[in-house]
């Protein structure tokens, strides 16, 4: 097992090398740590956007690297993201009618 190469350079047909995956996992863990820290440290007005952005980053990283979407055929991305975007759009619109965001 090659444990030295950078994740990007070792992207193969099936994704990253073991070290690459471990690296991604460490980044994810670090972000999770940062997320948890918002519970203890006051982020002020940045609190909500920061949390949401970190959530999206984690989500996209898992999907792109662990689920190989980044390396796979675009059709898979289309199928999955269609569902995801539809869900976000439709449910946010529904919540908006409940004055959820204002």
């Amino acid at each position, binding site marked *: 097992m090659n444990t030295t190469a950078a994740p990007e350079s070792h992207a193969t047909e099936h994704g990253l090398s073991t070290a690459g995956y471990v690296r991604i996992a460490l980044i994810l863990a670090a972000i999770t740590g940062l997320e948890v820290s918002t519970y203890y440290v006051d982020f002020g007005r940045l609190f909500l956007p920061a949390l949401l952005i970190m959530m999206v980053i984690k989500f996209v990283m898992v999907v792109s690297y662990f689920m190989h979407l980044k390396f796979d055929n675009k059709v898979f991305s289309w199928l999955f993201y269609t569902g995801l975007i539809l*869900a976000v759009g439709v449910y946010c619109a529904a919540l908006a009618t409940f004055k959820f965001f204002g």
Partner: protein
Amino acid sequence: MWFTLDNLATAHDTHEGAAHSSTGLSNVKLGMWLFLGTECLLFGGLISTYMLYRGRVGTGPRPSQVFDIPFTSVSSFVLLMSSLTMVLAVSAAHKRDDRSTNLWLVITALLGATFVGGQVYEFTAFYNEGMGFSTSLFSSSFFVLTGFHGVHVTVGIIMLLALRGMLKNNKVPGSRAETVEMIGLYWHFVDIVWIIIFTLIYLIPA
């Protein structure tokens, strides 16, 4: 849920293999991604229900009164790590490294079981603090959302162990690597759902 289980065995159903398909992609994988796309709408609905109802507490505790952030952070971390071990299993399967595949499958299942154990603990503790299933809108929607997620994790564990058993007996139909990969996709999906739940439900107060 069972649909995913079906992927254990559908590869051989597709008499026109991946190589001959119009898109050059495997039927099972295409179906799996589509299924995950539809799952987005399922969890989206449950999350929205929770978001709408999280502040509606007539009796019983409010979210911030029961949530135990340090504990849940560890939970999230455990599930995240299980994603890593899962991806290692998939990677090993592609390299035809049976020993590592088996090992990481079992480790993933164990981490998953720990996560579910944590969830059972959490539910029991909440119940004792006066938050039953019917106590308030918050409690109903919380239990249904996290319970659905927990059921997904449990199904995932069963699939992992079943796959492990089938690998042992050489009963995995079709390409083994692909079967492992399919269960991997399902497992990661469960993880990303938890990434959202952890942030939206636990970290952002009502």
